[in-house]
């Protein structure tokens, strides 16, 4: 099997991730729920993981990291915990439903949305974003890297705009954490929402928020915290504020292992290797007249995603043929990003997405190219 769906989840994990999860299942108690050896082993590992994530995202302290199940949960916590009826929010047509649906819910409750459109290459206009700020703009919520096109937003520029207009910047880093540098201070991001199982190469069921000091978020959930048990309210201090209930310590142990790998291997190296593979794939196919590509693929700053259609074939058929005949795993359809597909006019056809990992070899990419050539020319 050749797996090219890393934008959905990382299939191959660094050595040590699975073992870390297995070891944790066999040895770790409930972190933050006691002081015996099994519980402390969990608490210590969770704390170290917070420290590693804080370093990765340029945060000052471990307490700025709150764990969730995934990016969707993190985005829901940030969006619903920071935006209220009457607030104005700027977002983009590049967004995943994990951003759009919470915002649509808030729109029904009285929040006002500006959704920045994209051009034919799936890019937003920063000038248009600048002009969209209003006196009551509470936040910009947007993705770093599109999960459809791989286009990259200039988060430092967006962060600067947010500071100038005194608005929060909530970043969806689902497709960029672990691959592109994100620095909370330098990029002026208030909340970074991330998942553990994509670029961070950890297990599914892990993710979280990195929250700038002083940014208050109303908790989405309340419940057990391991402290202040007789208080009727969820504790105010981070990260307990946003972490009601038992954490997925077993999954976080795997994330701990994958973060160690990322530290040693280096995310710049990973990004360069992935981009090289994606560029080769694109260059080998770009001259095929029957292929329509989506996104700003000639931009050197680009995620390792190449999305396209062959003629007017249903993307589901193309993806299915790749799977059935060549054992190549890709993702067809709308990728949970409806506005991106409306931009390209691919609501009915969808599109076939290849997403790459530094674990791929050039030979594997060549095999994929040959398979697509076969489909086109047979």
């Amino acid at each position, binding site marked *: 099997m050749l797996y090219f769906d890393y934008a959905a989840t990382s299939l191959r994990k660094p050595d040590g991730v699975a073992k870390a999860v297995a070891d944790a299942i066999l040895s770790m108690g409930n*972190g933050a729920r006691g002081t015996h050896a099994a519980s402390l082993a969990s608490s210590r590992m969770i704390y170290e993981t917070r420290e590693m994530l804080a370093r990765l995202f340029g945060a000052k302290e471990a307490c700025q990291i709150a764990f969730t199940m995934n990016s969707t949960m993190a985005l829901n916590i940030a969006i619903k915990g920071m935006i209220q009826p009457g607030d104005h929010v700027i977002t983009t047509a590049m967004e995943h439903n994990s951003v759009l649906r919470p915002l649509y819910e808030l729109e029904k409750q009285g929040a006002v949305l500006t959704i920045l459109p994209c051009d034919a290459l799936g890019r937003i206009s920063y000038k248009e974003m600048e002009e969209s700020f209003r006196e009551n703009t509470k936040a910009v919520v947007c993705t770093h890297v599109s999960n459809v096109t791989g286009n990259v937003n200039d988060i430092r520029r967006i962060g600067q705009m947010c500071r100038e207009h005194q608005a929060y910047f909530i970043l969806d880093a689902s497709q960029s954490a672990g691959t592109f540098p994100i620095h909370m201070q330098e990029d002026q991001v208030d909340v970074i929402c991330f998942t553990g199982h994509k670029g961070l190469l950890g297990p599914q069921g892990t993710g979280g928020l990195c929250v700038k000091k002083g940014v208050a978020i109303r908790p989405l959930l309340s419940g057990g915290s391991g*402290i202040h048990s007789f208080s009727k309210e969820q504790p105010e201090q981070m990260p307990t504020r946003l972490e009601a209930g038992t954490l997925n310590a077993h999954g976080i142990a795997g994330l701990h292992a994958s973060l160690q790998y990322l530290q040693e291997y280096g995310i710049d190296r990973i990004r360069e290797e992935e981009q090289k593979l994606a560029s080769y794939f694109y260059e080998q196919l770009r001259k095929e007249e029957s292929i329509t590509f989506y996104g700003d693929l000639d931009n050197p700053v680009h995620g390792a995603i190449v999305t396209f259609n062959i003629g007017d074939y249903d993307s589901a058929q193309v993806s299915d043929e790749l799977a059935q005949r060549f054992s190549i795993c890709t993702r067809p359809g709308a990728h949970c990003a409806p506005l991106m597909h409306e931009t390209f006019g691919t609501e009915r056809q969808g599109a076939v997405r290849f997403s790459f990992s530094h674990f791929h070899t050039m030979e594997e990419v060549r095999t994929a190219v040959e398979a697509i050539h076969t489909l086109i020319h047979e």
Partner: protein
Amino acid sequence: MRKKELSCIFSFETTTQAMAMENACKKKQIPGRIIPLPKEISAGCGLAWWAPAKEKERILAFMASEQLVYEQCDEILF
């Protein structure tokens, strides 16, 4: 049961603060260990840092220098 001794107990607002304390103390060989929060200090649950009472001033100075946060510091028999 062992005989109680005069102890210095630091309580915290979050487990993360307690873990930061343990982490920093281990690195600098500051005496003490994590214990369950004694009920004499608070009825709620949670983690606390225990150390002999004679170490209190040294630990307070260390915590200040490391910018370690605590909720409360008490001397009790534990």
